[in-house]
């Protein structure tokens, strides 16, 4: 892939095009859910624009990042819950 970026999602390597958001990369990797709700249900992104907070994941150790607002960068470590 020309101009691609490698990141790790739950310790699995994923290759995406430059300019891909972390949310889009997680959806590409077929991960079932992004996070668990307060009562333990799986959730995934809804608004795609930073409003709903359903796409929260841990990025490079920083929890509760809205993955739809962050571009993938080489070597990024992403954790869903």
């Amino acid at each position, binding site marked *: 892939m020309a101009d691609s970026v490698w990141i790790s999602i739950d310790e699995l390597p994923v290759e*995406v*095009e430059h*300019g*891909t*958001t972390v*949310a*889009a*990369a997680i*959806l*590409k990797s077929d991960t*079932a*859910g*992004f996070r668990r*709700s*307060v*009562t333990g*249900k*799986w*959730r*995934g*992104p*809804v*608004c*795609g*624009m*930073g*409003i*709903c*907070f*359903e796409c*929260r994941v841990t990025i490079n150790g*920083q929890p*509760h*990042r809205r993955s*739809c*607002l*962050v*571009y993938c960068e080489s070597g990024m470590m992403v954790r869903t819950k």
Partner: protein
Amino acid sequence: MTGIEREVVIVGAGPAGISAACVVAETGRSALLIDDNPSPGGQIWREQDRHGSDWQASHWLRRMHLYRVDVMSGATVIDGDPGRRAIVCETANSVSTIRYKKLILATGARELFLPFPGWTLPNVMGAGGLQALVKSGMPISGKRVVVAGSGPLLLAVGAYLKGQGARVLAIAEQASWSRLARFGLGLPKQPYKLAETWQLKRALFRVPYRAGAWVEAALGGTVLERVRLRVSHRYWEAPCDYLAVGYGLVPNIELAVSLGCQLSGGCVQVDSMQQTSVPDILCAGETTGIGGVELALMEGRIAGFSAIGDRLNAQWLFSDRERFRRFARRLQKAFTLREELRHLPSEETLVCRCEDVSYRRIAPMSGWRAAKLHTRCGMGPCQGRVCGPAAEFLFGWNCQSARPPVFPARIDSLIEHVDK
């Protein structure tokens, strides 16, 4: 903490904010655009459009670079102090106070999401939401998608997804054919819009468009597996990969409210020069009323002229603005939400997705304040941005309350802000 000062500061780098910034920067004044998304363009001009076919997007983004508008992306404005003419802005690793002579709020709109059984399953998304994710790199080719909800956005999303190789199984519009026909008859007065509709028609060739249809339930175990639509008096069910459902747009008024701007009909109230009720704060675009990209551009330019005190140039644009506003009012009427949607949630359906509060617990409350106090509805990280407008529609409550910070801020941001 850093201190920055600019003549005109604009919050929101969508069409309204960008056009306002260009008007200001073209006169040699310093303009700063702040936006929480990773790159400028707002909800409509995302990454892929900028080199692509959207001439409006390339035109304005080129102009923005040409006149060296300062852009701060990935930065959220969380608070402000109109008395000191300052706003507080947070990025992933810093906080800054920014001073302005004039502030233009162009914070745009978000989608209206309404609860129905299964709406919290992963892969049930907003209509514009799914489009935004695909524009930011999510693969959709070959996937089965149902687009539902209300408004012209459904057509744009359906056409876009089909163009990206998705199998769009249906577009379900809740408004009835008779309402749409009434709206359609008015179209010839808007040649611009009509052309747009024709283009979309070609792009949507063979995609079934069902009016008077809405989602009854999304079904699945851990993720979405099937969707059940109600089409007038019948049901239609199909397996699908994604359900994209949005019931129109809600203006992002929270920042304006926390700065003390007065509202009118749920939108920020402005005068003919886009001036709000607070001195030196102007507002433009969807935040003053849902009206589409042309209206946002027009209001943005007027706000820009207004901010630099150029009344004459602003006045040239008044009649165009009025024409787009009239069209927006007609759209709003055509796509009025039907009563049946109020009865979609079951007792167990969650209304507040952040705190997992069910319809059964919220419905008996006397109002929004009571619901927040007793059920924690609207108290999660989205701060009622999703469930507030939904509760307003379901129960007729007034759910507007914004106290700083308007977005959940990191503790260090708040401490620095208080200490300054």
